[in-house]
């Protein structure tokens, strides 16, 4: 009975973002059987939700989708989306492979085997709910596929907003709607686990100085990614308070990074570059707009990054050294930023139509109490050999890659993911040799 709920793999990858996908692909290509467990309804992580990526300005979807579908179609990779991990630890039972994970499949209220992703349910559903995939700036339906290039193409029913009107069930061509679905528990046994749980942004709601998320037209950087994405909430950059095309846009750097008073003392590493990237995209779509980046240090450290920064300066994007101390609501939907003009001329209050907060990155997952892997004082997973192999954790068969081990850009994440796959493969080939 129990065994029907047990699935065996070589490696369990926790998190289906770019780190998880790359790790899984690199292991799958080596012939290892890999399970990816993802909490969201689609794989792709943060990257698939971005507009374009620096410094190449590739369309994020165009370079993420191939990885997503490669993983989805890979003969050695199995995806488990919309799942919660309830425990992840060493396994000591008789069937032990080394790693045991207890997982809950959350109900979509849609039968994944029957659904063909046609979205008839979504179109017919009468209830609009705020679309968090679009930063809450527009709506989707109470039953919907999370976003256009989601994998798998399966809708999710938001039962909190469902009236049980039955229209989706009526219209579904495959009888895939199942109002009675329940969470289902299953177990994954594996020889190794790789933690690729990524990051979240510090919530702007918790930040007093920048208005606790209550000042209109002060958005966080991921919301800005959506505004810039071609399939974003408005299909263009508009101000959320009234639909105005903004004429003056400001970036507030280190909003919650390198700032002990805001709880994050480390550098979030990617904000300088994504702010510059967004600024460049903005000056492309709104050529007449004034764009200002308020910063402390521009950290354009990676390959091609410095040149990217210098290009942005040459394009007329204004860089002002100074940390914005406070943002207040201005007139007609503007936001007022206050900063010190460091040439000695005092304090400046500047009005902007739209302000983007480059919020700091925090870990996407807290292993406690699910998994005994250790974390550092920065709450990211501890890397026990940061020089020889940054992917090694304090548990010998658990590895870490990407932003789960500290803020990281996509390039460094993809590379580190390969490295994690390598270490896991080595661990497994060693254990074969020992046996």
């Amino acid at each position, binding site marked *: 009975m129990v065994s029907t709920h047990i699935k065996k793999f070589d490696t369990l990858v926790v998190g289906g973002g770019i780190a998880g996908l790359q790790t899984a692909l*690199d292991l799958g*290509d*080596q*012939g290892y059987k890999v399970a990816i467990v993802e909490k969201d309804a689609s794989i792709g992580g943060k990257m698939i939700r971005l507009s374009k990526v620096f410094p*190449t300005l*590739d369309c994020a979807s165009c*370079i993420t989708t*191939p*990885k997503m579908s490669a993983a989805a*179609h890979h003969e050695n990779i199995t995806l488990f989306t919309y799942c919660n991990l309830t425990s992840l630890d060493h396994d000591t039972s008789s069937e032990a492979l080394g790693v045991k994970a207890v997982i809950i499949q959350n109900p979509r209220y849609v039968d994944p085997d029957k659904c*063909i*992703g*046609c979205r*008839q349910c979504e179109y017919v559903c009468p209830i609009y709910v705020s679309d968090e995939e679009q930063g809450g700036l527009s709506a989707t339906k109470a039953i919907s596929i999370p976003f256009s290039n989601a994998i798998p193409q399966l809708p999710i029913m938001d039962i909190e907003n469902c009236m049980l009107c039955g229209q989706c069930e009526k219209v*579904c*061509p*495959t009888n895939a709607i199942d109002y009675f679905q329940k969470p289902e528990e299953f177990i994954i046994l594996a020889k190794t686990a790789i933690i690729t749980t990524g990051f979240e942004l510090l919530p702007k709601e918790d930040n007093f100085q920048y208005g606790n998320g209550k000042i209109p037209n002060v958005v966080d950087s991921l919301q800005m990614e959506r505004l810039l994405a071609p399939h974003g909430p408005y299909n263009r950059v508009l101000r959320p308070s009234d639909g105005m095309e903004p004429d003056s846009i400001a970036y507030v750097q280190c909003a919650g990074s390198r700032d002990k008073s805001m709880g994050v*003392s*480390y*550098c979030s*590493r990617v904000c300088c570059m994504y702010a510059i990237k967004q600024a460049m995209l903005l000056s492309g779509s709104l050529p007449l707009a004034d764009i200002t980046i308020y910063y402390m240090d521009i*950290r*354009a*450290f*990676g*390959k*091609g*990054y*410095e*040149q990217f920064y*210098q290009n942005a300066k040459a394009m007329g994007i204004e860089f002002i050294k100074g940390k914005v101390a406070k943002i207040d609501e201005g007139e007609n939907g503007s936001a007022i930023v206050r900063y010190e003009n*460091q*040439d000695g001329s005092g304090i400046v209050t500047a009005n902007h139509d739209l302000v983007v907060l480059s919020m700091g990155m925090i870990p996407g997952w807290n292993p406690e109490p699910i998994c005994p892997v250790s974390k550092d004082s*920065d709450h*990211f997973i501890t*890397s026990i050999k*940061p*020089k*020889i*192999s*940054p*992917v090694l954790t304090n548990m010998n068969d658990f590895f870490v890659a990407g932003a789960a*081990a*500290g*803020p990281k850009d*996509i*390039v*460094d994440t*993809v*590379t*580190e*993911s*390969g*490295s994690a*796959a*390598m270490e896991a*493969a*080595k661990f497994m*080939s*060693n254990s074969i040799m020992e046996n």
Partner: protein
Amino acid sequence: MTEKNTNKTPDNKKIGVYICYCGGNISDHVDVEEVKKRAEKMPNVVVARTNMFMCSDPGQELIINDLKSGKIDRVVVASCAPSLHEATFRDAIKRAGSNPFIYEHANIREQVSWVHQGDPATDKASVLVASAAAKAKLLKPLDPVRVEAKKHTTVIGGGIAGIKTAIDIAQTGINVTLIEKSSVLGGQLNNLDKLAPSGEKASEVLQELLDQVLNHKSITIHTDCKIEAVQGYVGNFSLSISKKSNNKIEKFNIETGAIVMATGAIPYIPFDGEFGFGRHEQVITLQNLIQILKDNKSTGSILEVNGKRIRNIVMIHCVGSRQIPGIHQPKEDGKLNEYCSRTCCAAMLNASNQIRENFPATSIYEMYRDIRTYGRGQEELYTQASANKVVFMRYETDAQPEVSLTSGSDYPFQVKVKDSLTFNEEMDVPADLVVLATGIEPDDVSGLASMMKLPIGTDKFLLEVHPKLRPVEFPITGIFLAGTCQAPMDAGEACNAAGAAAVKASALLRKGFIELDPFVAEVNPDKCQGHGACIEACLKEGALNLVEVENDGKTVKRAQVTAAMCLGCGACAAVCPEKAIDINGWALKQYEDMVDAIVSDGFAV
């Protein structure tokens, strides 16, 4: 396989067309039964069927049964976007025992029923089916290009990245040869001391890796080597090596399946007079300082260098990095290092902290443009430096600090800086020692790169295929890169890159053969006249060659494809006057026939 030998004209192909209702998603706008009727009249179509859900098991069974019974030998499914179910139907065909490449997909959901309505939708669906059928009749069974591959990798460069790559690959059961040009392994790590930010000793890190690499039975190490030539392609490269030993030059070849470039980088050396460098022995580079700290035996509270007590140190950041045209002086080749060297901020702060903690009577002034402590634990170094009372001063690019000798002062130097943190006031800082935070420069590997046709970026570092999708790969299959030959990196980052390169190499070679996409160029020897236009057009050097063959007793030139190297882009097909070369699975002729089907409106039989 046998089919290849049957009649070459496509007219006898038997196409099965399967049209999906998609539970109304298609059939609500497309009259599926009408499309089926029209399909039945299309050339070579012997079977046309509809189903509620072609992707369902019963739907797939229709195809399998028709194939197994021999009714059909080509398959067209008209349904949703190919990204969703092309793989599904190819699998079904495989299960029926047929070659999966006899399949063509017609996208009548995303590109018809969801964007058009009414009769035009039905008409367009019919046209798409007709054009798919037109292509299908020209399809032939294909097999993956199989290349035998040596289970062996050559790693070029014995620094930390090369060593780590070698260990990782060897651990997966593949033999590795590690080639180093100098006489010692370890590269730049040999010149480092305590590594930022955590303070591990470089020598210990290196020793741990050396223990593994030297004792691994699958790893052969050659030092003092020069690579003379590289030939071959993925799975079958050949390297000619010359090795200096005991004043003799020994030459040998390595046959290898894959190559990893881990050739590293070198520290920037300031030009003569740059901030006084080369003119005063108390103006040194960061690398010099690290060496001094490594060897230092000062015991008092003040740092001593060359017997001199160092009360004040001025450190200048971004020397030889982040150079700006018009402001910085280019090298002899006219090039500037416009990139950020990534590692120097943390390394400099690390050194400052060591000095301040061990020699509290030595003061430090750091003059910077931006402090770039981006990595994990690095911001803490900066914070710690502040707590250690290092004074930071910020200069703008157009106002570089000026180092000058003093006369009559207690201090040998004074460094003048326009400090933007002090409202752009000019400040004088007296100094006993000036340290220049010199960055990383690419080593000159242009010889190797041209031998192997590897791209080099404008920053003179080796250039990967794509920084995000394929950061450790070159456009040339089977050659990878790791470490600072790609860009500045610290030890941990170089090791990550090494692991990533190793995983690619071992995935490639693990089976002893490599299966490549069958969508490569193929020459029709009957048509080829050996013009060579295709070779001109070919985007991948080495993929297409003119070879001499015997034809009717005469030696003639003919184009020959090296499938393992072909990208399958089709640039060759476009230029062949004889139409003698084409891409398997995506042939020009197939497109022409598809266009014919489109203009004939697809149902005018």
